[in-house]
């Protein structure tokens, strides 16, 4: 074969190739179709598992709805399937339900559906995420008064029941009661069209929706583990919205960093020497250069944290002073402790979790170096999720090494009660603090209402961070989402759990 024919063949081949490519690559989406790319495939798509963000992002307010929603701005409770609610007495709440709402299977939405959803979520045999987390610790007994009125009784005083109802996604009562479903039926603006395992979930606008119809008619949710690929998909028009872009990939104008209601911190195991000395715990906080970490390892929009919840959470305390970076003071505190016989040279393990947030290993490598500079003997151990959970959750070994543990706490429910009891009371299963005084404050706050509730929660946050110094707060975190330039969508603080497809439109 001579040179000319090779060139010709190559040209023909390339032309055929690009022709085939142009035909088969998904072209830019039409005005009513949208593709969203997330990191992980959902687990079950069961409405009672929406505490898992993978499920919630597909279901919440797309396929299924809740009685009420929480405002992403200030966490106040707003109507959804319930139009009105009131506390009848300490242990009784009444909800008035919206009329003329139907499920995608044609069944009417009524009080019986709410009662069934509540029962299902609390069924121990189903082990629903919502029942095990948000609704935990209180027995909720529904009573159907009439199709549009339901009474929910509690066995303990539940001042924020409406907030909790914002977590209960309501599926059709015809869904199986003895098993989780992969085919949810809700009242939302979209119905499930198809779930191709390992590939995608397709949603289609529901014609019978009770409120404003979405401008997107067909939405597809797909998952790619690699941040660079997710980012590239928006560039090529294969997707219009991509979540959880790593800081190093999220440098274009289409990348939006939004607060994700997560706070990163290090939990101090304060039972074990030398961490049982308050001076040593204070030194840990003073040794970390938080300003140096922002904009380098952490995103520049991350905010220095003083406590474990973000300002949008009810009970947040704005008056806790942020830790300053003072390695010299840290050293002198360690010296003072040493002089009193505290074993400050003992090795402290920093347990990290691989991939808990972008650059999680890098952040701890930097922190380890900072601690070493201040005179700590710290060793870093990065763990995969399962062994990390073993370090996070009780019971812990009695003869364990002193340790600090990298973690991240989210609160999208808007009230401090969703953060404090399990993590900072003596019997909390991830709590490393045993302090009767703090237990009392948290318990009183959980039962209180209004200003008293706020004051007590604020006191609890101050006690944890300033008096006990049980944590090394790091940052209120941000997530980066890439949004195609022709798409109208602004991710809010709930975007970690909810893709509000109804709010998405093309320009």
């Amino acid at each position, binding site marked *: 074969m001579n040179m000319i024919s090779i060139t010709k063949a190559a040209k023909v081949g390339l032309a055929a190739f690009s022709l085939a490519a*142009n035909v088969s690559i*998904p072209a830019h989406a039409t005005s009513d179709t949208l593709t969203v790319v997330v990191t992980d495939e959902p687990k079950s798509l069961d409405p009672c598992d929406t505490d898992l963000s993978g499920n919630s992002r597909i279901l919440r307010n797309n396929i299924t709805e809740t009685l009420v929603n929480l405002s992403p701005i200030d966490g106040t409770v707003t109507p959804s399937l319930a139009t009105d609610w009131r506390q009848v007495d300490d242990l009784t709440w009444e909800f008035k339900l919206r009329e003329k709402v139907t499920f995608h299977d044609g069944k009417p939405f009524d009080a019986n559906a709410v009662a069934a959803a509540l029962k299902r979520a609390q069924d121990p045999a189903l*082990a629903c995420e919502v029942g095990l987390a948000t609704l935990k610790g209180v027995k909720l007994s529904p009573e159907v008064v009439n199709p549009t009125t339901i009474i929910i009784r509690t066995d303990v005083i539940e001042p924020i029941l409406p907030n909790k109802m914002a977590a209960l996604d309501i599926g059709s009562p015809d869904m199986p009661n003895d098993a989780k479903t992969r085919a949810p039926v809700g009242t939302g603006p979209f119905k499930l069209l198809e779930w191709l395992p390992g590939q995608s979930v397709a949603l289609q606008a529901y014609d019978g929706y009770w409120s404003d119809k979405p401008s997107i008619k067909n939405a597809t949710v797909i998952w790619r583990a690699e941040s660079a*690929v997710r980012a590239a998909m928006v560039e*090529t028009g294969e997707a219009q919205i991509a979540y959880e872009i790593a800081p190093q990939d999220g440098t274009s104008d289409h990348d939006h960093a939004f607060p994700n209601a997560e706070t990163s911190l290090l939990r101090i195991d304060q039972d074990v020497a030398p961490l049982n000395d308050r001076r040593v715990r204070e030194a840990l906080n003073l040794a970390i250069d938080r300003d140096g970490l922002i904009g380098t390892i952490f995103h520049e929009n991350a905010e220095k944290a003083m406590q474990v919840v973000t300002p949008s959470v009810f009970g947040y305390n704005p008056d806790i002073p942020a830790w300053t970076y003072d390695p010299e003071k840290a050293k002198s505190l360690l010296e003072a402790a040493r002089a009193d016989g505290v074993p400050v040279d003992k090795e402290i393990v920093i347990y990290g979790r691989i991939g808990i947030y972008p650059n999680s290993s890098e952040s701890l490598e930097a922190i380890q170096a900072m601690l070493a500079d201040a005179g700590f003997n710290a060793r870093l151990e990065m763990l995969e999720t*399962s062994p990390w*959970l073993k370090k996070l959750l009780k019971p812990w070994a009695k003869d364990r090494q002193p340790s600090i543990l990298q973690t991240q706490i989210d609160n999208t429910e808007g009230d401090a009660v969703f953060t404090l009891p399990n993590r900072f009371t003596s019997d909390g299963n991830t709590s490393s603090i045993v302090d009767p005084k703090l237990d009392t404050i948290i318990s009183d706050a959980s039962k209180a209402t209004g200003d008293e509730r706020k004051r007590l929660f604020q006191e609890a946050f101050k006690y944890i961070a300033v008096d006990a110094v049980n944590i090394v707060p790091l940052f209120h975190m941000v997530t980066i989402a890439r949004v195609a330039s022709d798409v109208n969508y602004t991710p809010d603080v709930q975007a970690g759990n909810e893709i509000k497809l109804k709010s998405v439109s093309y320009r």
Partner: protein
Amino acid sequence: MSFTYLLRRTFSAAFALAALMISAFFLVRLTGDPVNLYLPFDASDATREAMRVRLGLDRSLAAQFIDWAADILRLDFGVSLWHNRPAMEVVLEALPNTLALGAIALTLAFLAAVIIGSIAAVNPGGWIDRGFNLLSQAAASVPDFWLGLMGVLLFAVTFKILPTSGFGGPIYWILPVACLFARPFGTLVQIIRGSMIEALNATFVRTARAKGAHAGRVTFVHALRNALLPAITVTGDLAAQFAGGGGVVEVVFGFPGIGKLLIDGILKRDFAIVQASIFAVSVVIFIINILVDMLYASIDPRVRVE
């Protein structure tokens, strides 16, 4: 190939498979308790214990093993904790994708390596040989992960002629195949080149040349037939590796194959998925090995499959 041979191989494979499955049973359970991964942090100790009881994880390892072995003998691999479906059903959806991906990549790599390796061997040390040597060494050593991301940046983002990732028509297969192609191609070129140089200097080739056979025929028929044997052995091994999936490549491209499933299964402590995947992949490897033996015998008449 005789029936007794097949029976003997099946018998020994069954033994190996049993040993493998038994070690898989104990190894996955050594990696930790799935309960903590499946329940929210806030779940109470009682709920955790209830789930352990429900999954049978509260019982002694021996008791768990006996039940598990009885289930496996009935080919019941249990229900996936994550997918909430029979594990084998999930595995059998993913396996064909991986097998097709591996088969395409390996066939192309083998064919390309035969051509490139043979051409390189004709004039060892020449500039063509040196060029191909460099190319094949680079291909054999480049990481899949890097190649995948570069492919996405170049062909999807910059030239916009290929999709970044996903699963569908032939166009979606090009980048994953190209990534999986590189390493076996590089390795096989090296092997074929070496054995071709040896074969081209062998007496039977010199005899063929002396008899006036055409140079192309000497290279591609007489010499190649002999030089292929080591390459087939290596290809068999590569095929066996591919049966387990190109994990990293499948993850990067969101390709729904067994490699990604297995990685997810391990990370999520989804024992049923891990065990069912290992079983399915082992059976495929056994079949590949038989096929390689048969191929070997058909190329070299001195080898008898018995």
